[in-house]
């Protein structure tokens, strides 16, 4: 990869149904990759700890959500701001059959990592051609 200056994408607010709680919710930036055994997802959620994450997979829809803590902002007065602070939420439709019981979630340095192992039936199988 050629060296390139990293840039920041402005946070996008979640559209569609509004949450019942007041406050803006943002879409986390994600990477999604697929290997033969699993789907992998990484989501940038700075300010979210491992206790404030929710991951759900139901009816082929994967939803991730994270809540930020406000404690560290008490008694501070903003001077210059480039980003807003809010909870994160995003949904994806997943076409693969996932083994829900084996989903692994890990939170490190404000990034959620999900490993979604494919169900045995969804893995590619090589079909031997019988020689007659």
């Amino acid at each position: 990869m050629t060296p390139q200056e990293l840039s920041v994408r402005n946070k996008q607010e979640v559209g569609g149904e509004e949450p019942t709680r007041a406050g803006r919710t943002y879409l986390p930036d994600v990477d999604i990759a697929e290997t033969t055994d699993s789907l992998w997802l990484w989501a940038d959620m700075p300010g979210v700890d491992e206790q404030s994450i929710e991951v759900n997979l139901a009816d082929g829809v994967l939803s991730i959500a994270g809540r930020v803590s406000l404690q560290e902002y008490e008694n501070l007065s903003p001077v210059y701001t480039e980003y807003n602070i809010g909870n994160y939420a995003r949904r994806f439709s997943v076409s693969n059959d996932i083994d829900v019981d084996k989903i692994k979630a890990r939170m490190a340095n404000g990034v959620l990592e999900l490993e979604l192992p494919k169900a045995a039936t969804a893995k590619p199988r090589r079909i031997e051609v019988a020689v007659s």
Partner: protein
Amino acid sequence: MALLRFSSAVDPVSGLLALQRELERRLESPLGLDLGVSGRGVFPAVNIFSDNTGYVARLEVPGVAPDHIRIESQGRTLTISGTREVPTPAGGGFHRRERGSGEFSRSLQLPEDLEPGRAEASYKHGILTIRIPKREEAKPRQITVQAA
């Protein structure tokens, strides 16, 4: 200048909205703080707050381990640099790639009454917090009235 005095213990919900509105007001009308050559849109995004001890800069650096971040002070300038790596699974292909990777560097030029040389940094859940104290002579002092 509005001071954010909300207590998250009492009402975390309206506290969030109050903070978001306050930050939004600033987003629309940036003050004349000189951030050197690099400005908005450069990674990492920074918010700067003040309290009675000095300034607090908060940068979003998700996925960057604290030992991959370097902070240097020279005169009035504070430079934050490092590398962000994003994992690539062996033998896999990407469906979506929205997270950037690579080297970053960003300089903040601070007002005269701060001491970047005495700044302290901490890292938590992908957010880097740098506290830059005011110079002693710039701190508010209470002056006692002597009885004649």
